[in-house]
C-alpha cells in the first residue's frame, strides 16, 4: 500500500544533482552577491551590555560621517512597527512573551541587541558610523545561569514580573508513574546539560529590500529558509498589505534552523527602504552572526527512569529547564515541546510518562530551532540514561536496549502520548549497526585494551533514536498552540510541449529538492527528470507554502507533488479516454502513456494529451483546458525515521584527547528517493552531532558577553577533525504517505551526540567516570578522570 504504483526508472537512483553546476562554478547568487544599484547599506548599533537601560541614543556625530544618509535610535523607529516581532508559538495560554521590536527602545537585553541603526552609501561607511553613535547605557546585572534565572534574582523583563515564560506539561498516568518509581527494581536519575550551540551556517545572513515607492510593492531578498512565513510576518509586523510583499530567497548557504525566523534586519530593510524610497541592504559579519542570529539548544535536563528487574522501562520522568534567551523569536518557546514526546525514545513504555518543561528568559542571544530542534535533546537524555541504567544493572547497553525496543510487530504503535508511530524496526537497525561495527569484536578488544594501566582506552557508544518530523498535521499543531499549519502546496503543470513545471512551497538551501522533486515527477508522469523544472523560494512564483525545516519537505512537500501528479494523471486520463473513445477505467497509465488495456495499439502519450489540453480543440464537455493540478496536502501524521548509531572512541588518558575511530550510522527514512542525497544529509547531520559532543559550545562569561564570537573560538570542525562516516540503512516504508518516505535531514544530528558521549563514558567508566559534560574537550575528559581518581582513591 506504500510503494509507487509503477516500476520506476529514476526514484531510488543516485542521481547527480542539477543544482551543482551553478554552485560549483560560482554562477549561483547568494543574497550578498546580488547587484542592487543605488542601495543603501544598513548597519546596526548593538548593545555591548547583556542587560542595560537605554537612557539616550545620540546619532548626531554619526550623521556627519562620510556616506551616512540617516541614523535612528529605537525610539525614532516605533512608528514603523504595526506589530511586535512575531512569536508564532504561544505554547500555553499564560505564556509570558516580552515586547520585542526590531530595535530596542528602553532596554537592551543581550549583547548584540540592536539599539540604533545607520544607513549609508557603503557597508564600510555604515560600519564606521556605527562607532560614532553614542548610547548612554545604565548597565544592569546579567542573567546567564538558568537556575539563577528561575530564581528571579534579576528579572530580565520587569513588566513580566518574572523570568519564567511558561511551564508546559505532558503527564500521562501520574499514578502509574508514582507507582512505578515506588516499586522499581532499578531507577536512574540523571542530569544533563544541553549546551548552547551556534548554528554557524557558512553563509552569514544577508538581506536586501527593494521598494517600488509609486508602484507600491516591495521585494525582500533574504537568506531565509522561510520565504512564505516571512512574507506573512513582514506584512503583519509592518502593516504592509500582504499582496504587495514579495519575498525571494536566492541561493541560501545553509540554514539548519537559524534562517527559519523573522529577524530585525529583515524588517528594518523593508521598513527603511519604503521610508527612504531606495533599496536597503545588510550583510552580517561572522562576529555579528554569532551574537545576532539565534542559538540552538540550551537546556538543563533531569531524567529519571524506572525499570523492572529485567530492565524493562516502567516509567519516565523528565524535568527540563529551557533557556529562551532574551526574547521569544519565531518558534523559540516551542522547541522543547518538539522533544517532549520523545523522552522514552524507541522503547516500549506503558502509559507512565511525566514531562514538564519550564522556560526562562536570560540575557543572552535568543534561542530557536537548530537542527533537530528539541529532538536531539530528548534523544540525548534517554540514550544517556539508558546507558546509565545498563551500567547500574551490569547489563550490556545493547542488550538492555533490545529488551526495550518497540518490536516490529507492534507497529503502527500507539504511544503513551496518543501519537501513532507509523512503522519501524529498531532491532534490525541496531543489529545491522552492531554487525557493521563488529560489536562483539569491539567488546573483546576493549577487555584487553582497557586493562589497568592502559593509557589508551577504547569505548563503544550506542544511540538508538527515532524522531518525529515531517512537520506536521495541522490539527496536531493546533492542539499544541502552534501558530501556523503544517501543510505543503504543490502545483504540477504540464506545458504544451510536455515539459513539466513543478511549483513547490518548500524552500531548499542545500537539500537538493530540485533534483529530488524532478525525480518524483519523472517517475510519476513518465518523463525525463531533465524535462522537469522546479520553481521555488519566490513568493511571486510559488505563492503558497510553509517552507523548509523540521525534515518536512519530502514528507509533506514531496508527497504533495505526488498527489498533484496523480490529479494531473486523472485529468489527462479524461482527455485520453475522450480522444481514444473508451472508458476511463479501460485505460492504464505507465511510462508516460495511456494505453487501452488489452489493445496496446490504442494509446496516447502524455505529450499528446498535453498538447491537446493546450489547443482545447477536442476536450470532453465541461473539462477546462490546460493540464495542471494544485494540491495542498496536510499530512495525517508526523513521520518517524529511526535508526541506531554506534561510535568507537579511543581516549588518551594522559591528555584527555578523544579520537573518534569509527562512526556507523544505520538510518531508516523509509523509501529513499535519492540515496546520494540521503547519505549526504546523514553525513552532515552526524558531524554536527559529533561537533556538539566534542567541540562546540557558545560560552558566555558572567557578564553575559559571548566569548566564542568567531570561528577561531567556536570550534566547528574541519575534515581533519572528524572521521569518515559509515552509513547504512534499513527501509521501513511509511504507511501514511504514498511515497512511503520519512524525513532524514535532522536524523543524523539527533542520533550522534549521545553515541559519542556514551562511547566516552564507556571507555572511562572502568576508571570511575560516570558522566561528563558536552563538549567533551580534552580538558573536560582529563578533569573527569582526575575527579574520579580522587574520589575512588586512585583505582586504575
Amino acid at each position, binding site marked *: 500500500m506504500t510503494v509507487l504504483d509503477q516500476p520506476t526508472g529514476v526514484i531510488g537512483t543516485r542521481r547527480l544533482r542539477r543544482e551543482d553546476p551553478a554552485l560549483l562554478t560560482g554562477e549561483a547568487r547568494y543574497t550578498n552577491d546580488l547587484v542592487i544599484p543605488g542601495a543603501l547599506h544598513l548597519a546596526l548599533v548593538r548593545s555591548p551590555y547583556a542587560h542595560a537601560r537605554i537612557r539616550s541614543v545620540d546619532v548626531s556625530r554619526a550623521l556627519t560621517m562620510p556616506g551616512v544618509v540617516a541614523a535612528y535610535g529605537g525610539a525614532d523607529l516605533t512608528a514603523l512597527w504595526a506589530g511586535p516581532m512575531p512569536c508564532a508559538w504561544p505554547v500555553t495560554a499564560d505564556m509570558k512573551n516580552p515586547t520585542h521590536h526590531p530595535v530596542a527602545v528602553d532596554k537592551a537585553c543581550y549583547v548584540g541587541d540592536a539599539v540604533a541603526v545607520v544607513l549609508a552609501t557603503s557597508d564600510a561607511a555604515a*560600519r564606521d558610523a556605527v562607532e560614532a553613535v553614542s548610547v548612554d547605557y545604565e548597565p544592569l546585572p546579567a542573567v546567564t545561569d538558568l537556575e539563577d534565572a528561575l530564581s528571579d534574582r534579576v528579572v530580565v523583563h520587569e513588566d513580566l514580573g518574572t523570568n519564567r515564560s511558561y511551564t508546559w506539561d505532558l503527564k500521562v498516568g501520574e499514578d502509574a508513574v508514582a507507582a512505578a518509581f515506588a516499586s522499581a527494581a532499578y531507577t536512574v536519575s540523571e542530569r544533563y546539560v544541553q549546551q548552547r550551540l551556534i548554528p554557524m551556517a557558512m553563509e552569514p545572513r544577508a538581506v536586501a529590500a527593494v521598494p517600488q515607492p509609486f508602484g507600491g510593492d516591495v521585494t525582500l531578498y533574504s537568506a531565509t529558509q522561510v520565504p512564505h512565513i516571512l512574507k506573512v510576518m513582514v506584512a503583519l509586523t509592518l502593516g504592509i498589505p500582504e499582496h504587495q510583499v514579495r519575498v525571494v530567497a536566492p541561493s541560501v548557504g545553509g540554514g539548519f534552523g537559524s534562517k527559519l525566523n523573522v529577524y530585525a534586519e529583515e524588517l528594518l530593510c523593508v521598513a527603511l527602504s519604503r521610508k527612504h524610497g531606495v533599496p536597503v541592504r545588510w550583510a552580517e559579519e561572522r562576529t555579528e552572526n554569532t551574537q545576532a542570529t539565534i542559538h540552538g539548544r540550551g537546556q538543563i535536563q533531569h531524567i529519571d527512569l524506572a525499570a523492572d528487574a529485567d530492565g524493562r522501562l516502567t516509567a519516565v520522568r523528565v524535568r527540563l529547564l529551557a533557556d529562551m534567551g532574551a526574547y521569544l523569536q519565531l518558534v523559540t518557546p516551542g522547541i522543547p515541546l518538539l522533544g517532549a514526546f520523545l523522552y522514552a525514545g524507541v522503547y516500549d513504555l506503558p502509559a507512565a510518562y511525566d514531562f514538564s518543561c519550564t522556560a526562562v528568559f536570560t540575557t543572552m542571544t535568543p534561542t530557536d530551532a537548530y537542527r533537530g530542534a528539541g529532538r536531539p535533546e530528548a534523544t540525548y537524555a534517554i540514550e544517556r540514561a539508558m546507558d546509565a541504567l545498563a551500567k547500574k544493572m551490569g547489563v550490556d547497553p545493547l542488550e538492555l536496549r533490545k529488551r526495550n525496543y518497540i518490536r516490529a510487530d507492534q507497529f503502527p504503535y500507539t504511544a503513551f502520548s496518543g501519537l501513532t508511530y507509523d512503522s519501524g524496526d529498531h532491532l534490525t537497525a541496531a543489529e545491522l549497526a552492531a554487525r557493521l561495527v563488529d560489536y562483539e569484536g569491539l567488546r573483546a578488544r576493549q577487555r584487553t585494551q582497557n586493562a589497568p594501566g592502559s593509557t589508551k582506552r577504547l569505548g563503544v557508544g550506542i544511540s538508538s533514536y527515532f524522531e518525529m518530523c515531517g512537520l506536521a498535521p495541522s490539527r496536531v499543531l493546533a492542539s499544541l498552540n502552534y501558530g501556523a499549519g503544517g501543510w505543503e502546496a504543490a502545483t504540477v503543470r504540464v506545458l504544451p510541449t510536455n515539459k513539466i513545471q513543478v511549483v513547490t512551497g518548500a524552500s531548499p538551501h542545500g537539500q537538493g529538492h530540485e533534483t529530488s522533486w524532478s525525480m518524483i515527477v519523472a517517475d510519476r508522469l513518465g518523463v525525463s527528470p531533465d524535462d522537469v523544472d522546479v520553481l521555488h523560494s519566490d513568493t511571486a512564483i510559488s505563492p503558497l507554502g510553509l517552507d523548509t525545516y523540521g525534515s518536512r519537505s519530502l514528507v509533506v512537500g514531496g508527497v504533495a507533488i505526488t498527489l498533484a501528479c496523480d490529479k494531473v494523471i486523472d485529468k489527462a486520463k479524461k482527455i485520453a479516454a475522450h480522444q481514444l473513445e473508451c472508458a476511463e477505467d479501460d485505460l492504464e497509465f505507465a511510462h508516460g502513456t495511456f494505453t487501452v488495456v488489452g489493445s496496446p495499439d490504442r494509446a496516447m502519450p502524455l505529450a499528446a494529451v498535453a498538447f491537446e489540453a493546450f489547443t482545447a480543440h477536442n476536450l470532453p464537455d465541461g473539462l477546462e483546458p490546460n493540464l495542471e493540478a494544485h494540491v495542498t496536502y496536510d499530512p495525517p501524521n508526523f513521520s518517524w525515521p529511526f535508526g541506531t548509531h554506534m561510535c568507537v572512541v579511543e581516549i588518551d588518558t594522559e591528555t584527555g584527547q578523544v579520537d573518534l575511530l569509527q562512526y556507523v550510522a544505520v538510518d531508516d527514512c523509509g523509501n529513499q528517493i535519492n540515496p546520494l542525497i540521503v547519505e549526504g544529509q546523514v553525513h552532515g547531520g552526524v558531524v554536527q552531532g559529533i561537533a556538539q559532543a566534542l*567541540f562546540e559550545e557558545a560560552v558566555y562569561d558572567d557578564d553575559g558577553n559571548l*566569548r566564542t564570537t568567531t570561528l*577561531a573560538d567556536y570550534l566547528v*570542525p574541519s575534515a581533519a577533525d572528524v572521521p569518515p562516516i559509515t552509513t547504512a540503512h534499513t527501509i521501513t516504508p511509511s504507511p501514511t504517505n504514498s511515497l512511503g518516505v520519512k524525513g532524514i535531514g535532522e536524523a543524523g544530528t539527533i542520533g550522534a551526540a549521545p553515541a559519542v558521549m556514551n562511547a566516552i563514558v564507556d571507555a572511562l567508566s572502568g576508571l570511575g567516570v560516570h558522566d561528563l559534560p558536552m563538549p567533551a574537550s*580534552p580538558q573536560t575528559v*582529563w578533569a573527569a578522570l582526575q575527579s574520579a581518581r580522587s574520589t575512588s582513591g586512585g583505582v586504575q
Partner: protein
Amino acid sequence: MIPAAFDYKRASSAAEAIALVGEYGDDAKFLAGGHSLLPLMKLRLAQPSVLVDIGRVSDLSYIRDAGDHIAIGALTRHMDVEKSPLLAQHNPLLAHAAGHVGDPQVRHRGTIGGSIAHADPASDLPATTLALGATYVVQGPGGTREIPASQFYRGFLESALSPDEMLTEIRVPKLGGAGWGFQKFNRRAQDWAIVGVAAWRSNGSSGVALVNMGSTPILATSVSSALASGASVAEAAELAVAEAEPQADLNASVEYRTHLARVLVRRALEAASGS
C-alpha cells in the same frame, strides 16, 4: 572585517623598507605575508597608519647551507621551509614545525620572519627556533646586528626589534645526528597549539621550548639542565613548567596547561631520544 584606513608604501629592498618605516615612526608596520598582521587589523586590534609592504623584497627568500648553520631569509614562506630538502636533511625539526603552522593556505603566504617578528607565544616557529638556539639577523638604520633567540622575546607580541628594524635572516644550527620531537596539542587541526613543545636532544645537550605557556615562547632550561645531569626523560619532563607562566583561556585552565606541558615535553623528549 574591514581594516581601518592606512597609507601604503612598497619597498623593493630591506634598506628602502627600513628607511620608509623610519620616516613614519611608531605607527608604521612591515607587511610581509600579512598572516599575523592582517587578522589583527581586520578586527581593528591593530590600526597602523602606514604599512610598508616588503613582500616583494626578492632577495630575502632563501634557504642556504652556510656551513655551520642553515640561513633562512626572513621572507621565506612557511611552505618553503616545510618542503626544503636542505632542512629535511639538516634541521627536520624546523621543517616539521613549519608544516604545522595554520593551514596550507596560510603556509603559502605567511613567512618565517613575519611569524618570528610578531612574537606571539602561541606561534610554533618562535618556540621552535628558540629551542634550536637560533640567531636572528636584524637590519636597522644603524646597520646589522645578530640577536640570539633567547634574548629576542621580551613580552606578549613584544620583541627586541626596534620599530624601524627589520628581521632579515634566521640562522638555525644543523641538528647533525640529534634526535628531535615536536608536539602540537590542539582541538582542531587548524588551531593554535593549546600547548606545544619543540625539542632536540643529543646525548647530554638538548633544547626544549614551549608554545603557549606564557607571554613569550618559553625555553625550558630546567628540563635541559636535568637531562644534562643525567635525569631520565620522565624526571626532566616534570620540570617542564619551571620557566613557564601558563595562562588560562577558553581551551585550558592553568592546571590543565601545566599538566599538558609535562606530558608533551616527555613525549617530545621520548621522540628525540629515539623511543
